[in-house]
């Protein structure tokens, strides 16, 4: 009984304290009224269009392409006023049911994130000719692997190798030890395409300036190199990066999503070692390591998603592939930020020249992983 009184008194006190914390919204605001009040601030005409997204098994908080895609979707909701919905898949077996759910939810455009969704998206596009589909990082192909064009299916592709070529060129020019390194998370085309361009950029620098900067972790000709085995375990990235640093590497490009942060940690510990970020500008997204981010190879998945939704919501959906290039800024390298003063002017000029040459088509950067 004594205990009971004590608990009662205590909970009474807590209740009073908590009651003081929050007041109910004013009488005119019904439950849910608060919501309208907050979302009413940036007024966008609601558009009668529903854009939906199905993630791959990484989920929307993977700090990589699912997340970028979801950001593009959210931006479309905020700026275009379209309705959105998105579902996460936990495994490959979830793709088809999730796409079916989105179709049942009357989505006008359904975007699949990642090459693993190719078959499910393609099947859904064939079965539902009145719904439009888009697929990130893969084009469509038939059973004999010949490319096919779907009336209502748009591939969103990226010539990532062009941007990582520039990053490789800069890295080779900035390396004091003459050794740079890269590694991947899992050997997937969307990963090795970064490494191919990086390797070519270094090669180009060596040809241009008669140096022999070495690349560790990737052999473009053999299409083989070092991988941590997943996109989760940062410790693996840290160990691998340490190994590269021990072998003299002073610039590392980790193509492994969050695993790359492990490499950044190893680089920071070592001093004098810098990092080339991937997907987004790491100077901004990884503030802990901004002082060692030389540049980043950016892949604007969010922008591609946004543009696709914009076109579709305006009734201009086409099945022509969207290809992110240096020209349309679907890909690119991030500013040098802290390194800006350290990068020699002639290297910057050279990078600009190369950019122009790639845009004009004079210089072609190729990768077996390119779609």
């Amino acid at each position, binding site marked *: 009984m004594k205990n009971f009184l004590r608990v009662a008194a205590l909970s009474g006190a807590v209740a009073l304290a908590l009651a003081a914390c929050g007041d*109910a919204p004013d009488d005119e605001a019904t*439950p849910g009224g608060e919501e309208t009040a907050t979302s009413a601030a940036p007024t966008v005409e609601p558009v009668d269009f529903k854009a939906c997204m199905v993630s791959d098994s990484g989920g929307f908080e993977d700090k990589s392409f699912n997340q970028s895609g979801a950001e593009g979707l959210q931006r479309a909701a905020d700026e275009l006023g379209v309705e959105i919905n998105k579902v996460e898949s936990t495994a490959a077996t979830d793709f088809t*049911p999730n796409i079916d*759910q989105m179709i049942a939810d009357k989505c006008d455009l359904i975007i699949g994130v990642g090459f*693993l969704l190719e*078959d499910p998206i393609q099947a859904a596009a064939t079965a539902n000719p009145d719904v439009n589909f888009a697929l990130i990082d893969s084009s469509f*192909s038939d059973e004999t*692997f010949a490319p096919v064009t779907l009336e209502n299916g748009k591939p969103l592709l990226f010539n990532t190798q062009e941007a990582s070529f520039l990053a490789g060129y800069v890295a080779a020019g900035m390396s004091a030890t003459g050794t740079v390194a890269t590694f991947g998370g*899992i050997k997937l085309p969307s990963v090795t395409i970064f490494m191919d361009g990086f390797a070519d950029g270094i090669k180009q620098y060596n040809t241009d300036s008669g140096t022999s900067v070495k690349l560790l972790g990737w052999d473009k000709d053999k299409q083989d190199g070092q991988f941590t085995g997943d996109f989760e375990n940062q410790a693996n990235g840290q160990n691998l990066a340490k190994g590269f640093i021990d072998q003299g590497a002073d610039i590392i490009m980790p193509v492994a999503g969050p695993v790359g942060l492990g490499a950044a940690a190893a680089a920071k510990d070592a001093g004098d070692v810098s990092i080339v970020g991937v997907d987004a500008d790491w100077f901004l997204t990884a503030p802990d390591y901004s002082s060692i981010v030389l540049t980043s190879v950016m892949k604007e998945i969010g922008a591609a998603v946004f543009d696709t939704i914009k076109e579709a919501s305006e009734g201009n959906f086409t099945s022509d592939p969207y290809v992110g290039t240096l020209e349309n800024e679907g890909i690119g390298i991030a500013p040098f930020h802290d390194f800006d003063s350290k990068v020699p002017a002639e290297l910057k000029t050279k990078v600009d020249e190369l950019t122009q040459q790639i845009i004009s088509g004079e210089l072609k950067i190729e990768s077996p992983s390119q779609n």
Partner: protein
Amino acid sequence: MSTPPLPDPEVPPPAATGTAAVTTTDEKPPPQGNTVMREILSSGWLVTVLAVVLALVLSGVLIAAADDDVQAALKYFFSQPMDTFAAAWSAVSSAYVALFQGAVFDTNAETFTAAIKPLTETMTVSIPLILAGLGLGIGFRAGLFNIGAQGQIILGAIFAGWVAFHLDLPAYLHLPLAMLAAIVGGGLWAGIAGFLKARTGAHEVIVTIMLNSIAVYLIAYLLTTPVLQNPGSTNPISPAVPKSAQYPLLLGDSFRLHAGFIVAIVAAIFVWWLMGRSTIGFKFRAVGANPHAARTAGISVNASYVWVMLVAGALAGLAGSAQVLGTDKVLTADVAASFGFDAITVALLGRSKPLGTFFAGLLFGALRAGGFAMQARTGTPIDVVLVMQSLVVLFIAAPPLVRAVFRLPAPGPRKARAARSTTKEVAA
């Protein structure tokens, strides 16, 4: 018949097979694992149902807690508590309604086909759970805690996939051969664990867990080699399974339900016959009840371990074939999803009996299929479904907890009944 190693005056002469061994009172006690397992498997149906109810209630709390409206209302809980309850009620009820609509019958659908599609989805998703669960159940009843269904499913899928992609045969040969390959693949993988246990005493839990990891990396590797990789692709994905090796669709093109479901039913009947009617099943159960006693009674415990694992692996391999030849029609590194682990829960929930496993598999298939709708329609994170499943197994594994929550009487007399039924079972 061999004589017991420790002569015991109370032991009647071991003339009748089995009876002697189990009724012996002074025998060495069975290993702890077997006892725990048996306790879990022998708890009543009521506890099972209550465990599911409890899991649904607790998941409801979680759904409410994760809901934005509830969080907003909670800020002023003590001035208008009813707002919070109203928001929580609407969040939880809409989530569970969506779960039902996605798993059983879609009341929003415009056509009858669309309305019953969820039920067929539930059946489709449950196929690998039932098949792998049946296999695990056999192991549990034989006292083997086989955690390796995941790896066995993967190996089954690899073998089935290889036959499907590389052989060009007419359908009446291709599908059976691919299924057979799956049985062999899964069986061999599990057989390794059984063999090591029988030969060296290596614990099956550890060996099967390690074999799971090996299987995961094996399939990831094979998908980058011509063994399984789609020749036109640089992505780790196989070619599509040709029509001749696919499980035929049961209800036409509008539904994904395929003949794998019939395989699951047949497998359930087979397991019922095997465990309940055959001599081999009798040996398995005797080994599970008390391996020392079984050995005394002249049953080769080691051979039983190997056979149990072979059968369990074969069933898990069939589960893998259902995925690659039926549901997915393509092989990726993700083929087993989390089926191998969910199947453990299914087998425990079904208390390792074929019929129970069948319905437990359907229930988990429903949770999974309904989870998609729940996420799509109410924004409830799909992870809630995983939590729900985990809670079910947590409560199943702790019957005293469920009894305490619902103030059920402790099963005093039931213990005697359980003991008696074991004796009866073994004597049968």
